[in-house]
């Protein structure tokens, strides 16, 4: 069985500055994979490298067995990678529905059915379909951004810190949604700051430090690992 995504020994960065020093991440079919790590560890950078937004010096990226290293963004999307950036992830002056339509740019057929599916998956958005996305709350925008990314029926969904800046109530909702999306068969690669909650919904996780792998394991293993707990999960507060 082919891996959906395989990042192997990747060295990449912005211009001359190398940020990733030999990174390895893979995603298997129908998995939720979570990447955690301190600020500046290269978590988001790894995603951007796959999208063709970075300068790759060595290593390979494969999508479903075919190499896609250094493919331009538009083509990566066409090949089935959908990406939700951390911020500015909706077109604020376009309506909710127009945002979804733009999400389907590379796959314009069967638009009506796709829209119905999305409104079924995100019922809150159905009644707001004519509103400008910029008028919605942070949590709702995140829903629009995810629905927009799902419009192309992606082979893998990238989420860059989907809960950043959201209240705890919305955070839970987002993680539930991620599980629901994954339940429809879409593999998810998610970068998160709220490490504990995110690893809680993950099949597997990676801990990155300084652009390299530090720990790898199932979500539960990483939560249980004392070093990981000490570094990222606020274990001291728990044991106290």
């Amino acid at each position: 069985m082919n891996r959906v995504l395989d990042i192997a020994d990747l060295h990449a960065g912005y211009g001359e500055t190398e940020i990733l020093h030999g990174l390895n991440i893979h995603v298997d079919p129908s998995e939720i994979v979570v990447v955690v790590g301190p600020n500046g560890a290269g978590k988001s950078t790894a995603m951007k490298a796959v999208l063709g937004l970075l300068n790759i010096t060595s290593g390979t990226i494969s999508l479903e067995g075919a190499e896609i290293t250094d493919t331009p963004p538009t083509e990566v999307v066409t090949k089935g990678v959908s990406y939700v950036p951390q911020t500015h992830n909706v077109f604020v002056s376009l309506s909710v529905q127009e945002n979804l339509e733009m999400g389907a740019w590379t796959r314009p057929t069967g638009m009506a059915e796709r829209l119905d599916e999305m409104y079924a998956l995100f019922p809150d958005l159905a009644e707001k379909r004519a509103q400008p996305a910029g008028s919605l709350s942070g949590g709702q925008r995140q829903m629009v951004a995810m629905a927009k990314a799902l419009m192309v029926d992606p082979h893998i969904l990238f989420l860059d810190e989907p809960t950043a800046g959201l209240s705890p109530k919305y955070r839970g909702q987002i993680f539930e949604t991620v599980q629901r999306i994954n339940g429809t068969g879409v593999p998810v690669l998610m970068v998160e700051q709220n490490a504990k909650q995110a690893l809680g919904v993950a099949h597997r996780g990676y801990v990155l430090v300084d652009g390299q792998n530090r720990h790898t394991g199932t979500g539960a293993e990483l939560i249980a690992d004392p070093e990981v707990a000490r570094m990222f999960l606020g274990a001291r507060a728990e044991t106290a």
Partner: protein
Amino acid sequence: MWEFVNFYLMPGVVLGCIYALGAIGISLTFGILRFSNFAHGDTMTFGVYVTLSLVLLSGLHPLLVAPIAMAVTAAMAIGIDKLFYKPFRNSPTIMLVIASFGLMLMIRSVVQFFWGVQLQPMVKGIQMPMQELRPFLLPMKHVLIIGGTVILMLAVHFLLTRTRIGKAMRAVSDSPELARVTGIDTEKVIRMTWIVGSCLAVAAGVFLAMDTHVETMMGFKLLLPMFAAAILGGIGKPYGAVAGGLVIGIAEELSAFPWIAALGVCDGNTFTISTLNLVSNCNAPLLNPGYKAGVAFAIMVAMLIWRPQGLFRGRQF
């Protein structure tokens, strides 16, 4: 009252329509390609001269042959984009602005080289206002200009809100980075922007030529009021550009109205603004018509100082 409507307000509306059509292109280019296109006015001039040649060749009304001129001008704009702007796509904006400045001079020189620099009429003969509407005086050409503008604006509105490519234009204007990672074909969007911008510019230029005459500096002279209109409406906002164009056109014409006599604040024949030591005839225009262009400039400067985002919250400089 009819004097005001016939000789100040309606010409203001007509001028406003012309500015508005030109300003939409400037606003769209700024929103989508992120630079101020100084060559917009001369692109317009080029289209007007193509129309003039077609009129002379065919003997048809300029509006009938204008669509061909629009197609030729749009093709030229796309060619220019490929040769001169695309290489600078990821460079600082100032390089694109300077490139457009160079193209402004190049296009104008090409026009002057092939068509000469003397004034020429687009439509021959004096056009009388329609008799049926008296005392409202409306020449047929103004009906065509205003009607044509309304049709073109409805078409632009339809394009931007109902078509896939139009929505993508708004999306790219919103966030080019997000558009890229969404998979939107930005180059296609850019091509469409040049097509829409140059077609509207040619329309504006042909309308102006119908109202006045054809000359090689006409587009350049429109550049300032078109930018003023785009800034007034909030640059990057095509609907704002329409409002801005109308406001500037009307303001320019009304500035020459003898307001002092009309408002009855004058008892003798002369009116003195003591602090400025200006003595003026009551029936004289408020502002010498020679300074009309200054009105657009004054509005633009005032907007940039006090409300740089424009009336409709466009992008800030």
